[in-house]
C-alpha cells in the first residue's frame, strides 16, 4: 500500500497535468486551474480518510472543518458581532475537527466502501453540486472541480492497486483487489451497501448542474481538435513564438 507522501506526490503530479491541459485548452482560467489542481490533489488523499490513524484523515478533517468555519463566517458576518462569530467558529471547528472525527473513526473501516469507484463518482457529483448551489459557480467550472476530485480519487485507488503487486516475488499481495473495485459483494450486508451507493448516484445527479457544457468542453470532437491544436506548436516553430 502506498504511503501518504507517495499518494500526495502522485495525485499532485496527475492533477497538475490535467489542470495545465484544461488551462491550455482554455476550459479554465488561470485562477480556476490552480483551484482544480488543489482539488485533484485533495481528491488523491480522500480515500484514506477511512483509515483511523492515517495522515489523510487529519488533513481531510482539518480542511473540512476550516471550510465549514469559513462558510459560517461568510454567512453570519453581516449579522453576528465579532465575539459571537468567534465563539460560534470555535465551537464549529472543534466540533468537526475533534468530535465528528472521533465519531467517524469509530464507524469507518479502512478499505471498505471508500475504496470503490462509485464512491469516487459520488464525491465528484457532490462537489459539483456544492460548487453551484453553495458557491454560485457556473455548470462547467462546477463539473470540472467535481471531475478533478474524482480524478485524484481514482489515481489514489489505482496506486493502491499497483502497490498490491509484489514485483520482486512476482506475486499478488493479500491487499490485491481491495482498492480499485466496483463495490463489495462478499455478503448480504456488503451487497446492500453497494446497492445503496449505486442508487445514490442518479439521485445526486438530479440535483447536479447541467452536464452538457462539460461534455462539449472535454468529450466532444471539438475538444479533441482543441487538444490536438495545443499538443504541439501549431505553427511548427518550437519555443520561438
Amino acid at each position, binding site marked *: 500500500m502506498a504511503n501518504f507522501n507517495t499518494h500526495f506526490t502522485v495525485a499532485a503530479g496527475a492533477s497538475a497535468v490535467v489542470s495545465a491541459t484544461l488551462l491550455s485548452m482554455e476550459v479554465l482560467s488561470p485562477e480556476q486551474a490552480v483551484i482544480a489542481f488543489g482539488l485533484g490533489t485533495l481528491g488523491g488523499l480522500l480515500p484514506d480518510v477511512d483509515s483511523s490513524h492515517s495522515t489523510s484523515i487529519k488533513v481531510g478533517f482539518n480542511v473540512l472543518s476550516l471550510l465549514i468555519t469559513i462558510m459560517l463566517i461568510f454567512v453570519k458576518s453581516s449579522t453576528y458581532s465579532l465575539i459571537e462569530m468567534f465563539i460560534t467558529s470555535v465551537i464549529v471547528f472543534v466540533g468537526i475537527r475533534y468530535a465528528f472525527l472521533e465519531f467517524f473513526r469509530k464507524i469507518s473501516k479502512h478499505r471498505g466502501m471508500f475504496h470503490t469507484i462509485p464512491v469516487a463518482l459520488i464525491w465528484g457529483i457532490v462537489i459539483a453540486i456544492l460548487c453551484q448551489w453553495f458557491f*454560485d459557480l457556473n455548470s462547467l467550472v462546477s463539473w470540472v472541480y467535481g471531475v478533478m476530485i474524482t480524478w485524484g480519487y481514482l489515481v489514489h485507488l489505482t496506486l493502491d492497486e499497483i502497490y498490491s503487486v509484489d514485483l520482486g516475488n512476482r506475486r499478488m499481495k493479500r491487499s490485491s483487489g481491495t482498492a480499485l473495485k466496483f463495490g463489495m459483494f462478499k455478503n448480504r450486508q456488503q451487497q446492500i451497501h453497494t446497492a445503496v451507493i449505486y442508487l445514490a448516484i442518479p439521485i445526486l445527479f438530479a440535483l447536479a448542474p447541467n452536464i452538457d457544457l462539460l461534455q462539449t468542453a472535454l468529450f466532444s470532437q471539438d475538444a479533441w*481538435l482543441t487538444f490536438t491544436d495545443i499538443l504541439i506548436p501549431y505553427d511548427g516553430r518550437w519555443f520561438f513564438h
Partner: protein
Amino acid sequence: MRQILTILGVSFLLVGCVQVPMPKPQSQAPLGTEIGIASGHGEVSEYGNPPRNYVTAIKSYFSTKLKRGEEAQYKYSSPKRAFKRKGLAYGGDLSWKGWLVETSVAVPTRTGRYLTPRPYMVLFSGEQIVEDILGNSHKLLTKVDK
C-alpha cells in the same frame, strides 16, 4: 451500513435539505420609479424595462472579457425576465431580478479555428450588464419567461 448512511447523510444534508428562499414581493415602490402606475404594468416595473441596446452592450462586454473576443460571433435571444439567488454559502437571498439575454458566443482558438458556440446568460439591470453566466441553466437562477 452505518458508513454508507454517513456518506449519504452528509451529502444530502449539505445539498438536499436546504431551504430555498424565494424572492419577496416588493411592498414598496423603489426609489426613482413613477407613482401610480396602472396595475397591468406592475410586472414590468418589478423587473424594470427590458434592455434596448443589448446587442451592442453584449458585444462590447465580451470583446474585452473573452480571449480573442473581438473576433467572436454572436447569436442572441430576446430579453426574458428572470431572477437569481445568492449561493447558499452567502445566505441564499435574492441577488438579482431583471432581464436576461441568452447569447451564444463562438470564439476562435489560437489557430484561428472557431469553437462550438458556448451559451451564456447575460443578466441586465436596466441597460447595464451585471453578470454573465456560462451555460443555459443555473440552479440558482429562475427564468420567469420561458
